[in-house]
């Protein structure tokens, strides 16, 4: 980066700092930056990571700095995840609309992006607040990070302008850019919007992963000057993949909640039908992204372990292990609500009764796998239970507490969730091919072979081989799940080629309780992201930047699980309240009041 740009980025930062100093007189932040510049001047550009004392963390208006940064960062992240995800599936839905020439898709895509517009400004406001909070409460850390990431922070600011420009063109130009070449231009804008949004996420991800797995610096934290090395640190891509997939699932769940909200408040059957259809599509998007999500999470956790055994154990075997149990429960709740919504949705078809008898078996397997999924390795035992067992290890339940059992359980849950979806798809169709029976037998054989293979891999490699195979066995398990899903979809498309419909689908014929399943999906996702986000950040423990820059503030300790869960829960309530506001404001924008006698006739 040339000197001018660097000066400009420092200038932006300096302006912010000076502004804040003026607003909060009495906090001497300039010293922190002056010290950084002094070191930088003496070491040819870059100094070591600052060594701080408790006095270097300003107290502002009596607020707890960690709490403020924590809540604001979390709120920013929730909104950011939502606004980054919506354009991804809005683009896909718009393409489907263009290909099928079904205007309903175009209208739905527009309604989705309309919901995200208010959320977009809230994301930006919260991002600004986060920046202020970091500069105010953690000036040395922010100073250090902005020295290393000056390039990317500068480009980030520019990308933000680009994002706003493209988003406004995309949204406000929706009805203007319709038909023919104009539609193509609009789609190109959609693609560009996604590219810029993803770029923004990748840059921000690099800053936080640098704090976990620093790169491009020496042991004292002196930056080598190689910005790409700092960005492309060990955990960058695992986080990128995990967040990208999770954002789509999350965005789907939030617009699903919007559709549920509109369904429950709809006044006419027509409106109900529309929002039922919208809810179905949003849930479909959420499930599609939810299915690969456990694997992305597993990859991230395995990479964290590979990077540092200490971090890995803190994450899953140590102090945060019980939050992982809550995570497991919430993920299970996601799967259960997604399945329940599909089962309830079968009521839209007059031909669904044929499949009702299978639902209880799916439920038994799902619940069984779910119980294995959240069985903890370290059990909470009373003294009498301890005595009866002869120690803290449970010979039957203990082995269910480790990853091979979890992987087997989650793959089973995914395959059976897919089976629910398959039944849903079939519920309104009658196959006409002569080999339907043979096709169904092949489907059963495929599922049986898949489950058998997943169980074999999980049990044999999980318990009778060493850790290298144990971890490696998760890959063929995932591949088995993937092969079962893809093969089954292809097979089913042949079985149902030219199939007859039982009758028209009755959109809107779905019980209200199914809408609450959609709400549960959004709430569980929100809470889950907050808790997992805390863990991801918390495994740094008393480090701002692991092994490079120590957190010497009064709040450097790891809080108790109860406290952390309370903070995340309160933040989730604030976020959901803001989301309800976003839903409401989207509704208000299309409401017109015509006061009689107010305007001159």
């Amino acid at each position: 980066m040339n000197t001018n740009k660097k000066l400009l980025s420092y200038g932006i930062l300096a302006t912010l700092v000076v502004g804040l100093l003026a607003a909060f007189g009495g906090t001497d932040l300039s010293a922190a930056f002056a010290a950084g510049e002094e070191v930088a001047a003496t070491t040819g550009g870059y100094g070591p990571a600052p060594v701080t004392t408790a006095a270097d963390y300003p107290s502002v208006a009596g607020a707890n700095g960690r709490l403020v940064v924590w809540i604001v960062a979390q709120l920013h992240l929730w909104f950011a995840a939502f606004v980054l995800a919506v354009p991804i599936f809005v683009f896909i839905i718009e393409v489907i609309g263009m290909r099928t020439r079904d205007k309903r898709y175009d209208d739905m895509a527009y309604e989705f992006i309309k919901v995200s517009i208010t959320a977009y400004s809230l994301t930006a406001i919260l991002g600004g607040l986060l920046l202020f909070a970091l500069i105010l409460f953690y000036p040395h850390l922010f100073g250090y990070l902005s020295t290393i990431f000056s390039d990317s922070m500068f480009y980030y600011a520019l990308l933000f302008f680009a994002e706003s420009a493209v988003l406004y063109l995309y949204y406000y130009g929706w009805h203007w850019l319709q038909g023919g070449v104009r539609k193509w231009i609009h789609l190109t804008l959609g693609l560009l919007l996604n590219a810029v949004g993803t770029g923004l996420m990748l840059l921000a991800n690099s800053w936080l992963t640098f704090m976990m797995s620093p790169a491009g610096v020496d042991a004292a934290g002196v930056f080598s000057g190689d910005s790409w090395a700092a960005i492309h640190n060990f955990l960058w891509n695992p986080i990128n993949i995990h967040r990208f997939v999770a954002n789509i699932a999350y965005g789907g769940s939030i617009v699903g909640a919007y559709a549920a909200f509109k369904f429950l408040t709809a006044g006419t059957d027509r409106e109900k039908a529309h929002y039922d259809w919208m809810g179905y599509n949003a849930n479909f998007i959420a499930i599609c992204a939810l299915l690969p999500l456990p694997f992305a999470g597993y990859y991230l956790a395995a990479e964290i372990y590979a990077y540092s055994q200490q971090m890995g154990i803190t994450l899953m075997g140590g102090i945060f292990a019980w939050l992982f149990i809550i995570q497991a429960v919430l993920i299970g709740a996601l799967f259960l609500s997604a399945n329940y919504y599909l089962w309830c949705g079968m009521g839209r078809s007059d031909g669904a009764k044929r499949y009702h008898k299978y639902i209880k078996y799916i439920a038994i397997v799902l619940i069984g796998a779910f119980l294995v999924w959240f069985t903890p390795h370290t059990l909470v035992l009373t003294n009498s239970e301890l005595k009866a067992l002869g120690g803290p290890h449970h010979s039957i339940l203990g082995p269910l507490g480790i990853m091979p059992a979890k992987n087997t359980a989650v793959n089973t849950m995914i395959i059976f969730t897919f089976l629910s979806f398959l039944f849903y798809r079939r519920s309104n169709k009658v196959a006409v091919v002569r080999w339907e029976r043979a096709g169904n037998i092949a489907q059963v054989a495929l599922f049986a072979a898949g489950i058998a293979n997943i169980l074999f891999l999980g049990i044999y490699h999980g318990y009778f081989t060493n850790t290298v195979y144990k971890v490696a066995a998760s890959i063929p398990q995932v591949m088995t799940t993937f092969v079962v899903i893809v093969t089954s979809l292809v097979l089913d498309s042949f079985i149902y080629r030219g199939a007859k419909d039982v009758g028209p689908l009755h959109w809107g014929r779905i019980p209200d309780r199914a809408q609450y399943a959609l709400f549960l999906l959004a709430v569980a996702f929100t809470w889950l992201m907050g808790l997992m986000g805390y863990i991801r950040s918390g495994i740094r423990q008393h480090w701002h930047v692991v092994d490079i820059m120590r957190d010497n503030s009064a709040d450097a300790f790891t809080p108790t699980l109860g406290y952390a869960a309370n903070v995340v829960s309160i933040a989730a309530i604030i976020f959901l309240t803001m989301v309800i506001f976003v839903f409401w404001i989207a509704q208000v924008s299309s409401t017109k009041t015509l006061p009689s006698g107010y305007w001159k006739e």
Partner: protein
Amino acid sequence: MRIPKLLQAVLVLVFVYYGFIVVFDYILGAVIPRSLLTMYMFFATAGVFMVFTFDEQGAHELVAPIKAMVEQPRFRFIRNLVFLIIPIAVGYNVYGRTLPSFEAPVELRTIHPAPPSTAKIYGNRVNLLTLENPFRHTQTDDPELFAEYVAEGAEVYIMNCQYCHGDKLDGKGPFAEGLNPTPLNFQDIGTIAQLQESYLFWRITTGGPGLPQEAAPWISSMPVWQDFLSVDEVWKVILFLYDYTGHEPRSWGEADAGH
């Protein structure tokens, strides 16, 4: 006669609840912790609710008896009885749970604490992230020498460790009964099989007093073995632990990308 849906749901849950107790406590002989059973039952109840209510007819049949009891005048006596029994049952449950007991409170102890990145062992600061067993390479390079090291490790183990951890490495040594928490069972798939050798080295050499803060309360009786054994003896005993149990230390194989 067809059993009403509400009764079906209740019977299923009772069956599941006692099924867990019978299978674990009596058939397998390993009690199911009540804390876990509560969680299991919560989600079993959710599952039963889901299956019974996903279609309108099912939901209607499930709720119909409750609705009838609440709304219909002819069920007045039963209604009053139910409205009396439920608060009493809840109250009794709360009373039972809050009643002081002589049992020590349940502890959620981190048995598996995360190691620090460095630790002071034998007077030197050791980096636990990069530390490796200096004798491990002999397993492939010189199997005879490796067998010798394992035998030496076994001797150290029998002389020092088996009193607690047992001669079968199953955590059931002669002293084990007197300790709480009981010594670790190395045969268990969830203990040394999940860990790198450096972790064992840290735990053995620094013992209970070397546990990090997150492992509080420090009620481990593990001695500080660096005061009694040499570095080589500790590494050899680690070789023996893995060799005897048939487990392999945690490693990343060729994909090892740790720093």
